[in-house]
């Protein structure tokens, strides 16, 4: 719970900001310049309160011996609320200041600003009660008030523009526009306050747009539920630019369908979300039950969201790092069988290029932003020349143009150990995170899998051994498949694919030594490929020790 002192100070602050807004509305109506000093001095008081609350929040967080996550969330919410209350206070002062430039006070009265003050007052009034009661409906109402304020702003903005077109009172109208702009920004701060309240209630940082998307997505999937009863667990991953949440009914009750305990809500980049939706549908046609079921999807102008089945089980990564050898062995065998079946079932006799080198090139910028020295420049050691990274890539790209895979398969696209789930109840492997699935070269999935093992930040010998044999077995499976299919360029494509995965993985690795190891392996492979260019590619032999650490 918030300390009594903290709650008291926040209550004072709400009251003072509400009074400030009252007085501001009054001054805008009357144009009474004599009220300015009062407004300014109250602003100083509000600033002081903010500092006091901020200090209390930080000291509570640092001094409390034991503090629960819930308390931490409430303190964080309190801090966000006080910062935004202070901003509302500042906007009030700025709005009043504009009166200095308004030559004709009556012009302001042509426009309806009072509505905005009324909405702000109505919702500020309930901030403290919501913080105490955790009333989700009221928190959402505070968030949605911003939309109302925006609509009023838009209405007045249009009216100001129309009058400006008349060509009269231009200076005064622009001042009126500035005043409305400050009022509109008060709405933005009110939204931040509402979202802070959502954080204190849900224990999750969630934006109102995401919340609405979730609400709509759930209702499209036929769920009628009070969202305040839904449990959210923390963001599972967001590297792809999509926010992912696990959604669960109250007391872990089934929310979607009897066989499902919970579901995953993904919201974010429209293109990625839609790609995932299409891929889930495609996977479901090829392999029912291999990937999560799609419950519903939702699109807005810029973002989209999906509600998909949450697959219970363990990721392969968790089994590698914590499972016992027998379990891991069994899961790997299952994985091999699944992978082979996917390849055989989706194989199409159409040559396909995975474009590994262009994939490196397009991620080069993100690699260099994390590791600025991860590119070679031209160097000479005696008569030996060190080829710069760019030149090496260009030459390998020309080689790659003639190295299409002889057939395509439907690849996962991000086949790393985190995206492979073992469901012990069903006794089967399932795959998640499928937005990159496409018809492509199976070598891509194999190399991503291998490097996702390699880049595990574990250095204990027995775990490294484990990663190494998992790598070797997957590589041998692929090599054998290649031989059966008469795929003669398998090893050289594998070299390029591994070079790509090693190089691009460095952008996720902050341990410079380990990242540098991958950077060097990537260059070594590219140099090996280049050195072989005058011989037939079927004679290229991948130096397999490159895969082991």
């Amino acid at each position: 719970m918030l300390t009594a002192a903290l709650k008291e100070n926040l209550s004072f602050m709400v009251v003072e900001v509400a009074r400030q807004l009252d007085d501001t509305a009054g001054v805008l109506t009357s144009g009474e310049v004599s009220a300015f000093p009062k407004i300014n001095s109250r602003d100083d008081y509000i600033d002081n309160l903010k500092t006091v609350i901020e200090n209390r929040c930080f000291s509570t967080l640092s001094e409390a011996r034991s503090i629960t996550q819930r308390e931490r969330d409430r303190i964080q919410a309190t801090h966000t609320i006080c910062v935004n209350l202070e901003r509302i206070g500042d906007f009030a002062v700025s709005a009043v200041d504009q009166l200095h430039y308004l030559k004709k006070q009556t012009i302001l009265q042509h426009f309806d600003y009072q509505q905005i003050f009324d909405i702000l007052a109505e919702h500020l009034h309930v901030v403290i009660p919501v913080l105490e009661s955790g009333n989700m409906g009221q928190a959402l109402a505070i968030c949605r008030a911003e939309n109302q304020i925006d609509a009023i702003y838009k209405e007045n903005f249009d009216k100001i523009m129309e009058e400006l077109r008349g060509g009269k009172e231009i200076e005064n109208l622009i001042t009126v526009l500035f005043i409305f702009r400050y009022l509109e920004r008060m709405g933005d701060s009110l939204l931040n306050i509402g979202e802070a309240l959502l954080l204190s209630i849900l224990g999750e940082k969630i934006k109102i747009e995401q919340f609405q998307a979730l609400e709509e997505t759930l209702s499209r999937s036929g769920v009628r539920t009070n969202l305040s009863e839904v449990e959210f667990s923390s963001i599972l991953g967001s590297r792809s630019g999509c926010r992912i949440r696990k959604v669960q009914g109250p007391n872990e009750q089934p929310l979607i369908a009897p066989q499902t305990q919970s579901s995953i809500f993904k919201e974010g980049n429209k293109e990625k979300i839609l790609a995932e939706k299409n891929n889930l549908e495609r996977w479901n046609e090829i392999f029912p039950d291999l990937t999560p079921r799609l419950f519903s999807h939702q699109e807005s102008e810029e973002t989209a969201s999906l509600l998909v089945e949450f697959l219970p089980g363990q990721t392969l990564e968790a089994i590698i790092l914590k499972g016992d050898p027998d379990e891991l062995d069994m899961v790997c065998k299952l994985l091999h069988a699944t992978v082979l079946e996917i390849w055989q079932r989706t194989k199409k006799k159409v040559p396909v290029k995975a474009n590994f080198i262009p994939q490196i090139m397009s991620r080069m910028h993100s690699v260099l932003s994390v590791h600025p020295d991860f590119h070679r420049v031209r160097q000479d050691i005696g008569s030996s020349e060190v080829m710069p990274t760019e030149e090496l890539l260009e030459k390998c790209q020309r080689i790659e143009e003639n190295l299409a895979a002889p057939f395509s398969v439907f690849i996962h696209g991000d086949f790393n150990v985190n995206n492979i789930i073992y469901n012990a109840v069903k006794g089967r492997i399932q795959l998640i995170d499928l937005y990159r699935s496409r018809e492509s070269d199976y070598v891509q999935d194999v190399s991503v899998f291998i490097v996702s093992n390699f880049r595990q930040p574990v250095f204990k010998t027995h775990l490294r051994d484990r990663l190494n044999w998992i790598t070797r077995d997957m590589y041998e499976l692929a090599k054998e498949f290649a031989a059966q299919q008469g795929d003669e360029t398998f090893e050289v494509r594998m070299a390029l694919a591994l070079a790509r995965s090693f190089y691009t993985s460095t952008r996720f690795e902050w341990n410079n030594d380990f990242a540098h190891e991958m950077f060097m392996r990537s260059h070594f492979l590219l140099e090996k490929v280049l050195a072989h260019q005058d011989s037939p590619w079927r004679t290229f032999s991948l130096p397999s020790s490159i895969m082991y650490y």
Partner: protein
Amino acid sequence: MSTKKFDYESLQDGHSIKTYLVSLIDSIEKGRIILKSNGDEMAMRVGDLMKFSVQAKNKDGQNKLSIKLSWSEIKPVIKDERSSSMSIGS
């Protein structure tokens, strides 16, 4: 884990240095570098992959050129915990 060390420092001219370097190149080609000190032998198996670095410095007429090879001998050996057997991964 025991640590073995070999240390050698001397003055040479271009001709005699070449002899040492050629002998090292031979050893690398054969896959085994043998170093002996007062009868104590240190043998190193050449790795499939070795880190190779060259560093040079010239300061106030003082020159330094370091050539370093480093590698792990354990790397290519995969101990398969499932069957407790050892296999060579390359």
